[in-house]
């Protein structure tokens, strides 16, 4: 099978394309850099979608790629998401590594059948004979004042589908390294980009190679573990800072990989603190947050001082821009949840 590539060679060739460097940049720039380096490193990588060519994408993630690498490597398609993902499936079958952009989370839904019925299943259907090295990039989440259909959190749909790797970065470094790893992966990756963080800045070392299935300790702490991902990581860090001022040490784990899930890191973290809150902005019912809560409860029960709580978006359609501040879980709501974790008994037993 000469058409298949299962080694992460794009990552190993990164050095050839761009010398390793540490630079401060926005998440948007880090994603752009990852795409550029992947295109430069591997002739089979192509980037396509709606408005990704001359415009550089509505969020400018593909800015300059078409001009730099040519229409052959980064191009606009007809406005049809199922068509984009469906043709990417055929390209992947024929040896290419397509990286497609869905313009907004809700606008990825026309492609859902292709994602669930083919992207996720073709490898299994053919006992590994057909591989799907393709990446579906989807801007997700709210916090940007977007109107209806522009701020949804759709991760549960993808995470529920066996065969998909579903990841979401919360720092420019992870945005770069995880996108490179996603493109190098022999399996399909749904890459969820938190819109609210596109303009957040951080250091990026382009020589860092990410392990896609792993969680990251975003802040050390000893009293309680907050398990979160995407744009909510910033909320958790803000809450941890406030809590520190009140004498409570909050650990923040950025789970990063929604599927597969890094049970080992998460379980070890929660067993060490004995308390956990899951934070995510998607509606909580049948959500990724619910799954994390269940897993942690099952695996850490004997180590827990209190029930595992979750703080999520309400079970309502995503809020209109002027209602967003009431909908989105913020540091206060998270701190309130942390306050309920049976601290009094702790204090009583300490006396």
């Amino acid at each position, binding site marked *: 099978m000469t058409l298949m590539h299962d080694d992460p060679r794009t990552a190993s060739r990164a050095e050839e394309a761009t010398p390793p460097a540490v630079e401060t940049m926005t998440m948007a720039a880090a994603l752009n850099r990852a795409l550029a380096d992947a295109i430069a490193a591997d002739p089979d990588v192509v980037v396509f979608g709606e408005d990704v060519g001359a415009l550089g994408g509505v969020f400018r993630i593909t800015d300059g790629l078409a001009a730099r690498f040519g229409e052959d490597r980064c191009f606009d398609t007809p406005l049809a998401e*199922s*068509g984009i993902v*469906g043709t990417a499936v055929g390209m992947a*079958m024929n040896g290419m590594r397509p990286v497609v952009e869905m313009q907004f989370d809700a606008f990825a839904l026309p492609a859902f*059948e292709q994602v669930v019925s083919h992207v996720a299943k073709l490898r299994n259907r053919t006992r590994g004979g057909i591989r799907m090295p393709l990446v579906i990039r989807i801007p997700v989440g709210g916090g940007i004042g977007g109107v209806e259909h522009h701020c949804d959190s759709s991760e549960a749909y993808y995470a529920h589908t066996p065969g998909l790797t579903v990841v979401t970065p919360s720092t420019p470094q992870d945005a770069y390294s995880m996108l490179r790893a996603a493109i190098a992966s022999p*399996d399909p990756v749904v890459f969820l980009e938190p819109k609210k963080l596109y303009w957040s800045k951080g250091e990026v070392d382009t020589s860092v190679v990410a392990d896609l299935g792993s969680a990251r300790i975003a802040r050390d702490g000893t009293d309680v573990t907050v398990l979160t991902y995407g744009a909510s990581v910033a909320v958790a860090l803000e809450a941890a800072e406030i809590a520190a001022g009140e004498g409570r040490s909050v650990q923040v784990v950025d789970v990063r990989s929604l599927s597969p899930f890094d049970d080992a890191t998460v379980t070890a973290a929660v067993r060490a603190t004995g308390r956990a809150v899951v934070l995510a902005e998607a509606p909580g019912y049948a959500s990724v947050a619910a799954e994390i809560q269940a897993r942690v409860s099952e695996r850490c029960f004997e180590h827990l001082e209190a029930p595992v709580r979750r703080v999520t978006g309400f079970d309502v359609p995503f809020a209109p821009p002027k209602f967003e501040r009431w909908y989105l879980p913020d540091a206060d709501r998270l701190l309130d949840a942390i306050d309920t974790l049976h601290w009094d008994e702790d204090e009583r037993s300490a006396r």
Partner: protein
Amino acid sequence: MQEDLLPRHPPVQLIDADGVVVQDDDYALPDSDTLLRAYRGLVEGRRINDQAGALVRQGRLAVYPSSHGQEACQIGAALALGEGDWLFPTYRDSVAVIARGVPADEAMVLLKGDWHSGYDAHLRRVAPQATPLATQLLHAVGFAYAAKRRGDDTVVLALCGDGATSEGDFHEAMNFAAVFQVPVVFFVQNNEFAISVPLSRQTHAPSLAHKAIGYGMPGQRVDGNDVAAVLAVLGEAVARARAGDGPSLVEAHTYRMQAHTNADDDTRYRERAEVQEWLARDPLRRLRAHLVAEGLLDDAVEEEYAAGAERIAEDLRSALNADADLDPEDLFRFVRTERSSQLDEQWRLLRGELSRTPAAPTAGGAR
């Protein structure tokens, strides 16, 4: 110029229902060798269809969507392609899949229930048979895009039925193919029914081939029970794609002689008289009449073809009557390249259950 994109009326026919050659200004009758090869394919295809139907009744196949009556489309599709070309079939295209070189027992794995697909797609240049309608048309377009980009002269033939033309993916595939001018041929087998729903409920267009002009590609209609015409029209479409002149759409007019599957009851939605009418247009009968009249087919050749078809049927019977050695760990083996810790845990759970059940197959032992 734009009129060139419209299909002919009536559909292209080179051999009529009685086996008489119809002169055509645009399409030449395939040569005798090709017609004999096609006839042999039709005989084998019919036998496979009927054998598979019997195996369903015997409980050896879970289900079989038969192409009985559509064999000219199946064999025409398989023979129109060159060695390096690719076929993107549906669940009703098992005969075409087998005619492209996939062993019959491997083609039946999906329907037998031993796995979701049973053949090596890359080895046979046949994509897995698609069950969700029209989705495979987009895969064909993407596959053809990659071939064009690489400079291969591969042509991709994508199959679907009349019902699938109502799906959004049909539209998106036509449009992408035309915009990017990829080497793909869309071949619609219009067999008049999508399970129970007749063509009149799928479209108000003059024909399905008329849809092509809306995408700026040529559309053509062909008598789908005339394998000579199917070969001529598909042959031209494939040559056009290979020459870099872009995609096209071919609609074959044929008829699903049997119910959708064994689970369907077609007496609820169509008259027997209509089925009888189509019997007279049978693809085997007419080609046989032509070949006999031309002195190309005698009893000896016919017996040879029948015996060959019977051997395929026998192989199919013995393969499907044997129970495959199933390995429960296969459930977890192919989901992703690297097995996740979650799937490891779940396999351990199942393995533990199996080890406590004496009658169950030994875990991991069957490969």
